[in-house]
Structures are given as structure tokens and as C-alpha cells.
């Protein structure tokens, strides 16, 4: 298998292509694709499409077909998840100190005090999408961060394009991954779910086919703000970094944007929302790790687990099953 590793989207990206033909053309094109997508969807680049859209809230703004697609998906997931997935929490994310890229934040250290009180936000569902004219109007003051869902979309599109150069391809961007085709003689892809407290160890091992695997966690992308530990998962209901029942949630789904949205919704919503979310999207399998290290799993996730695990159900406290 031919591999290529580079840095993009403020994380490490790995491309894998089979068979190893000795030509790196497909890997190079895929890297160029990912870098171009990042330059369009990053909120940290002033010239990006997303930055221009944020700067023109209240007005109809022409957008690319790709951004329009992402906004339409985001709006659908926002409505499906009852607002648990909400890309318009950007003002609160900035207020919590995440106002520059994570690479930059790690260099700077403590982010100092909060700059403002939480202000009510416009409903993300009120964003207007004009598909025919390919333009968007966000309510006044709205700012969006498509970071997670954009990364999922990019990963999946990149993997599908990379696969045209071979039999099977995989793209992994900082733990968000999509697999196109099966490696070798039809064996499954091996995925290690990291132990949130010790990423070098596995909390579970998965064997998957052509799916997306996405993990949303409060143990990554953390920083200090005036001495307080902060993380990047904002609870849209409070406007503050979430205080979830899970430390990390891994979602396995047919599409990476779906996995991104539901991993975040499960993480923020906790056990109280888990059943509703599972009924909403039965094809999304989730594995959740709670602060005591217990693994909670949807029943459909068992088909992906390589080994026997002590699993807990979402409505269960003490006695494990499985």
C-alpha cells in the first residue's frame, strides 16, 4: 500500500492507496485537493469563502456549489439533531478563546480572560439557501464554523477521488477518516479507537468496510483560558464548552459529514438524547467512552467491533452486556 503523510487543516493527514503502483500522482492530486478545500472552508484564513460569508452576514452572498452543499447538509443536521449540531456557535467558540488556529493557540499558551458575555444567537435554521442562484443569506451577526463537517466532507471526497487511481483508498485527517473500497483480498480496514487518557493505547479495535469513522472528543483541542481548562466542543444550549457525560464519541456512518454531525450531537446530547438520535439515524453506529472509561455502544456497533468488549447500553448504569 502506498502512503502519503502531510499536514493540513491543522492536523496530520494520511492518504493510503492500493495497489502500490509506484506512481504518486494520485496522492499528489489528492493532497492538492485537500489543501484547496481547506483554503475555501477554513475560518482562520481571511480570504476563504467561509470568512467572506461570515463578513457578509445579512446580505445575499454568492457561494461555490461545495459550500452551498455543506451549508445545506449542516442545516439538515441542525434540524435533525434538535440544534445539538450547530455550526453557528463560532462567536461562543471565539469567546471561549478559540479565535486563532489550534497550531497558533498551542504556541501562545493561556488565552487570558473571556472577552464578552454570551449573547443570544440567531437560529441557524433561519439561514437562507438559494440553490438555483447559488447564494446564501445568513441572519445579521451570524458566524459559522464548518470545521468538523467540512473536514468530514473533504475526507470523503478526497478518498473517493483517490480511489480512482487504484483499488482501494483511505484518507485519515486527525482521526476523521473515510474508506473507499477494501484493501488486499477484501479484508476489512483496521481502526483503533484511542483511549482518551492514553492515545497510544486502544479503547477498542474496529474492522470496517466502506464507511466513515469519526471521533469527537473533549480531550483533544484543549487550552487554558485564565487558568480554566477549555475545549472546542461548544454546547449550543449554553454557549459554553460542553460538560458532557462522554469524554469521546466515535460515530461509524455511511458518510463522513453524517458521522461528524452525529458524533458531535451524541457527545453534547449525552445519554438523554442518545435514544432519539439513534432512532433518527439507525445506520449510524456509536461508541461512547465515559469519564470512568466505560464503553457505551449502540447495538449496531457490534458488527464493527473486532474483539469482545464489556459494553454498556445507553440506558444502563451498572450491569454490562456483551
Amino acid at each position, binding site marked *: 500500500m502506498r502512503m502519503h503523510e502531510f499536514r493540513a487543516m491543522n492536523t496530520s493527514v*494520511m492518504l493510503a492507496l492500493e495497489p502500490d503502483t509506484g506512481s504518486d500522482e494520485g496522492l499528489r492530486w489528492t493532497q*492538492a485537493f485537500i489543501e484547496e478545500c481547506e483554503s475555501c472552508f477554513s475560518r482562520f484564513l481571511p480570504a476563504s469563502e467561509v470568512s467572506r460569508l461570515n463578513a457578509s452576514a445579512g446580505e445575499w452572498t454568492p457561494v461555490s456549489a*461545495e459550500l452551498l452543499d455543506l451549508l445545506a447538509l449542516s442545516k439538515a443536521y441542525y434540524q435533525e439533531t434538535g440544534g445539538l449540531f450547530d455550526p453557528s456557535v463560532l462567536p461562543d467558540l471565539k469567546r471561549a478563546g478559540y479565535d486563532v488556529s489550534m497550531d497558533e493557540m498551542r504556541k501562545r499558551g493561556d488565552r487570558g480572560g473571556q472577552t464578552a458575555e454570551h449573547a443570544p444567537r440567531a437560529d441557524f435554521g433561519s439561514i437562507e439557501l438559494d440553490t438555483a442562484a447559488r447564494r446564501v443569506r445568513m441572519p445579521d451577526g451570524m458566524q459559522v464554523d464548518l470545521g468538523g463537517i467540512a473536514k468530514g466532507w473533504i475526507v470523503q471526497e478526497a478518498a473517493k*477521488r483517490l480511489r480512482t487511481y487504484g483499488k482501494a483508498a483511505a484518507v485519515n485527517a486527525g*482521526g476523521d477518516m473515510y474508506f473507499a473500497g477494501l484493501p488486499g483480498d477484501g*479484508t476489512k480496514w483496521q481502526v483503533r479507537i484511542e483511549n482518551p487518557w492514553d492515545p497510544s493505547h486502544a479503547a477498542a479495535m474496529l474492522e470496517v468496510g466502506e464507511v466513515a469513522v469519526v471521533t469527537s472528543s473533549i480531550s483533544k483541542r484543549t487550552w487554558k483560558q485564565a487558568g480554566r481548562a477549555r475545549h472546542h466542543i461548544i454546547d449550543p444550549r449554553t454557549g459554553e464548552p460542553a460538560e458532557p457525560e462522554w469524554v*469521546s464519541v466515535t460515530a461509524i456512518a455511511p458518510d463522513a459529514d453524517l458521522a461528524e454531525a452525529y458524533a458531535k450531537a451524541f457527545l453534547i446530547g449525552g445519554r438523554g438524547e442518545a435514544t432519539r438520535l439513534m432512532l433518527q439515524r439507525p445506520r449510524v453506529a456509536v461508541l461512547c467512552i465515559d469519564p470512568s472509561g466505560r464503553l457505551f455502544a449502540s447495538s449496531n456497533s457490534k458488527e464493527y467491533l473486532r474483539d469482545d468488549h464489556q459494553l454498556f447500553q445507553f440506558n444502563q448504569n451498572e450491569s454490562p452486556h456483551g
Partner: protein
Amino acid sequence: MKIFKFGLNIWITIVSLLSFLLGWVALAHAPKPLQSGASLPALSAPVIPTLEPLQSLMSGSGGNSSSGFQFDQSDQPFAGSFFSAPAPVFSSGGS
């Protein structure tokens, strides 16, 4: 002698006239030379394969993209490492 000279003059005149007329007819039916501004005859140029534009990657292989994306096609070296290895174990822990 006079008669001979007169006959020779007549002969030379007739032959010159006929030669002139023959040349006129020959030139009138000859292919005309190319003039500047005239259209060139169509040439069957060899078909040269072209590389797929990078932007078309946005819409799948070879499709038309309605994307607003513009790829930077400058000859920048690609950063990162290329290597061959058995199928790896991918790691997912959030980013």
C-alpha cells in the same frame, strides 16, 4: 534570297505568336500561388493527449465543475512524506 528572308520572318513571327499564346493558356490553367491573407488548407494535426485540469478533480473524474474553487497549479513541491507499507491500523481519537 529575298523570298527566303521574307519567309523566315513570317515563320519566326508565327512561331513567336503561337509560343506566346501557348504560354498564356498554360499559365491560365496552372494552380495559383498562395497569397498573404489567404486561408490555409486544413491540416490534420496529430492529437496530443492533455493532462486533466486539476480543477476537474472537484467534480469527479473529467466532469464539469460548477465550483468556485481555483487550484494553485504552480510548481510547488509537495510537502510531506511518501512511503510504502502494509495496510496500516488507522487511529481515531478526535482532533
